[in-house]
């Protein structure tokens, strides 16, 4: 089904292009000047004005100088060093010089006067046509000491003139200007509604950047990104972005402060990077939207060979002629008089590497923002489908009308183009995924480029190669790719419909397990006259291996235990329940601390696998005599705060972990400590999740901080003391998600 749709789209797109392109855009409209020739002309012009740009770096961009049906204007920028100085030469599409700007700090050839300089520049620019121009009108320029001379072409039906700016008797700028109107105003690309779109786009990009960065930093802080997989992913995304910048024109432009045209700015670059990382962080994408990003993610993992990747690539390539046809359709259909195709794609012709031009990057950015940020954000924030659509459609239309910029002319035409573009992107997004969307954009650029060339040109082969490469990659992925991708166990083929259901089912089962485990912990604290007691256990994952329990012993004493099973997650949780059961059953027959622990050890050793062990701190409290017997079976020492004496100690009798050995060594090592408690004393049992809690600067909470926290809680009853200690651990962690289960039991003598 999808295959047929793709082929139909390709045929329709090519047919549309074939009809409308020839109708709207006869080949004669374009005279493509080879890049090398253009560079040479620029060099000659520079030499004429007394600036030697030999050895300077050069960049070529194509822009549209005037709105409407004006010809393409090509601009070469020469940059010395790291953008310390830049000169610019502009040409019309026939290759004639129509603009020259000297570097800011380099004065070219010095003339006798400003007038002489202006005249020389004018004559160079006008050539044989010079006679048709009127004598210049002189005025002061924007910069101090700058003079402006304007020569008007009396014979032209348009407002055509040559403007020369001079300073200190040398030429700063020469410019041929033409406009259809008779006003003196300069036409500028970004005036009028384009200015509005630009502002809107800027706001969306900046907001997206800030939000995405904030979310990203939050995740880093919580260390969810520390998974090896996600790191690799982020690394891959970074490599791709950097390659785009280095091989495209963007990197040099980042350095050069003088270049203002069509540059990918630093904020845009980092927005794109942040969004890729956002995708990389994975949890940023809701479970529902996740499959849409899977193939792109796979690409970022630098492991793109998968069947789904091939499908997305193929879809993108097949649908791309439709996208490329949109501007021609708008300009040629007759509904929007005055519309013309914006030859933005011609920019590609003058890039060293096609497709990595800033214009293309901007569209990528818009796409990533729209589908990666706006769509999921609105899905999360707004429940009503119709309201969401009412926000998404206008926003997307405006965004793509501006960023994609297929046509220029009346606003209705531009908006229609924006809406059609949005629709096509949406189809690829809904039917395929994000990779298909991006591929279509890339491929449409190539198709448009090929069309514009339509004839012999030096770079035609790079276009054919790039397009062919994409087709080959699609076929290769289809034939050699695996059904299910490797790497992340969750990264299954997005086309497998069972994926979501499976995952959600698992998550549901985990939450049942978590509840069951929490229910297993004592629901109420034991009532011990003359004591207060408080306890909590917080698993780091859904289920954990920590445990606390209270026991009513046969001899009337109260047992207080904290245990920690080695490892984490489900296996640890299973052994945790086992330990709890053992403790309960063994204390039915015996109230003697040493033998109880030895018995638990024997059982655990016989049933656990060899590498699993349990550490336990267990205390038997004689409430009336105020005597607490404790053992420490491989567990962290207890903290004993003697309020009256003002002393805090670690109770650290010898003892091996449970389940390690059943030999007599265990009994020999196990020592029982006896604490004679006094009014106001506190005994704190805890698991290593407390003392080993690590903050973002990789410091551990440690025993020292714990003991100090217990001291500070001196005046508090158990519950408040417990909360205060845990509060100190949390503020120490400062937002970092605990890596281990945390268990804390506080026993306070008195009230």
């Amino acid at each position, binding site marked *: 089904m999808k295959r047929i749709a793709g082929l139909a789209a390709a045929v329709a797109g090519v047919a549309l292009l074939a009809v409308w392109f020839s109708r709207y855009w006869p080949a004669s409209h374009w005279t493509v000047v080879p890049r090398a020739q253009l560079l040479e002309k620029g060099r000659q012009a520079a030499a004429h004005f007394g600036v030697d740009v030999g050895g300077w770096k050069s960049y070529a961009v194509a822009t549209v100088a005037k709105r409407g049906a004006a010809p393409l204007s090509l601009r070469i920028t020469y940059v010395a060093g790291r953008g310390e100085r830049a000169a610019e030469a502009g040409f019309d599409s026939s290759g004639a010089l129509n603009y020259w700007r000297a570097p800011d700090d380099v004065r070219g050839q010095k003339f006798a006067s400003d007038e002489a300089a202006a005249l020389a520049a004018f004559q160079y620019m006008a050539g044989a046509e010079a006679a048709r121009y009127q004598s210049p009108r002189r005025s002061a320029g924007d910069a101090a000491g700058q003079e402006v001379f304007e020569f008007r072409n009396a014979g032209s039906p348009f407002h055509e003139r040559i403007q020369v700016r001079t300073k200190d008797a040398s030429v700063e700028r020469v410019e041929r200007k033409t406009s259809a109107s008779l006003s003196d105003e300069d036409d500028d690309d970004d005036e009028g509604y384009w200015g509005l779109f630009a502002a809107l786009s800027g706001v969306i990009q900046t907001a997206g950047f800030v939000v995405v960065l904030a979310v990203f930093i939050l995740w880093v802080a919580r260390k969810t990104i520390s*998974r090896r997989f996600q*790191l690799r992913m982020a690394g891959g995304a970074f490599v791709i972005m950097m390659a785009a910048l280095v091989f495209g024109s963007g990197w040099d432009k980042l350095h050069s402060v003088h270049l203002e045209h069509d540059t990918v700015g630093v904020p845009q670059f980092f927005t794109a990077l942040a969004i890729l990382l956002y995708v990389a962080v994975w949890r940023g994408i809701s479970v529902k939207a996740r499959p849409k990003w899977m193939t792109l993610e796979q690409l970022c993992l630098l492991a793109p060979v998968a069947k789904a990747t091939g499908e997305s690539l193929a879809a993108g390539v097949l649908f791309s002629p439709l996208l490329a046809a949109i501007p021609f359709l708008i300009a040629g259909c007759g509904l929007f008089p005055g519309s013309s195709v914006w030859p933005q794609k011609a920019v590609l012709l003058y890039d060293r590497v096609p497709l990595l031009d800033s214009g293309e990057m901007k569209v990528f950015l818009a796409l990533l923002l729209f589908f990666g940020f706006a769509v999921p954000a609105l899905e999360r924030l707004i429940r009503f489908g119709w309201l969401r659509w009412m926000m998404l459609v206008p926003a997307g239309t405006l965004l793509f009308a501006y960023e994609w910029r297929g046509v220029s002319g009346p606003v209705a035409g531009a908006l229609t183009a924006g809406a059609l573009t949005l629709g096509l992107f949406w189809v690829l997004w809904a039917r395929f995924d994000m990779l298909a969307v991006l591929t279509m954009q890339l491929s449409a650029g190539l198709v448009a480029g090929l069309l514009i060339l339509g004839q012999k040109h030096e770079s035609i082969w790079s276009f054919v190669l790039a397009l062919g490469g994409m087709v080959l990659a699609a076929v290769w992925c289809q034939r050699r790719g695996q059904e299910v991708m490797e790497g992340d166990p969750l990264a299954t083929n997005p086309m497998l419909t069972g994926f979501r259901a499976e995952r959600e089912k698992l998550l549901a089962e985990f939450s049942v397990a978590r509840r069951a485990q929490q229910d297993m912990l004592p629901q109420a604290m034991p009532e011990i006259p003359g004591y207060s007691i408080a306890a909590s256990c917080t698993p780091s994952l859904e289920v954990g291996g920590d445990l606390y329990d209270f026991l009513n012993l046969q001899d009337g004493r109260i047992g207080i235990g904290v245990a920690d099973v080695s490892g984490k997650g489900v296996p640890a949780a299973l052994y945790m329940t086992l330990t709890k059961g053992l403790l309960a059953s063994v204390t039915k027959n015996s109230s003697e601390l040493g033998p109880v622990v030895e018995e638990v050890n024997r059982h655990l050793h016989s049933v656990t696998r060899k590498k699993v062990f349990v550490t336990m701190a267990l205390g038997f409290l004689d409430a009336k005599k105020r005597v607490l017997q404790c053992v420490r079976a491989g567990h962290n020492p207890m903290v004993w705060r003697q309020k009256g004496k003002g002393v805090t100690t670690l109770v650290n009798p*010898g003892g091996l972990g449970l389940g390690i050995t059943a030999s007599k060594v265990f009994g020999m090592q196990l020592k029982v400590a006896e604490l004679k408690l006094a009014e106001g004393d506190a005994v704190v049992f805890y698991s290593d999740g407390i003392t080993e809690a690590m903050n973002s600067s990789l410091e551990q909470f440690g025993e020292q901080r714990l003991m100090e926290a217990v001291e500070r809680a001196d005046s508090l009853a158990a519950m408040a003391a417990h909360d205060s200690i845990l509060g100190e651990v949390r503020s120490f962690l400062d937002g970092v998600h605990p890596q281990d289960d945390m268990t804390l039991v506080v026993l306070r003598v008195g009230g």
Partner: protein
Amino acid sequence: MANPFSIHKSTEQGLSILALEGYLDAHTAPEFEKAVESEFQAGHIQMVVECSRLTYISSAGLGVFMSFIEEIREAGGDIKICALAPKVFQVFDILGFSALFDIVADLPAAVERYREAPVKET
């Protein structure tokens, strides 16, 4: 922030030395387990685990020491542990490993210990 872990194998005076480096936790424990097992399978039952560059050990890491020790001792071999950093030693010690394993200051001491007691007396 992936936690790096590596094992460097060598032999010294017939003893098989496993030098651990980095983080030994639930993620990296299987690697260590595999290394110990392959030594055991190859008949190298006198092992020294050198820990001078081991920066962290979790309970899963400690589990590896336990999982083989009985078999190895039954076969007449042992695992001696040397050069623990103070923080790592504390983890071993809390669990009571000092009673179960020979834990010595450095590699020469481990070699010496093998001469005195090839299998730890318990």
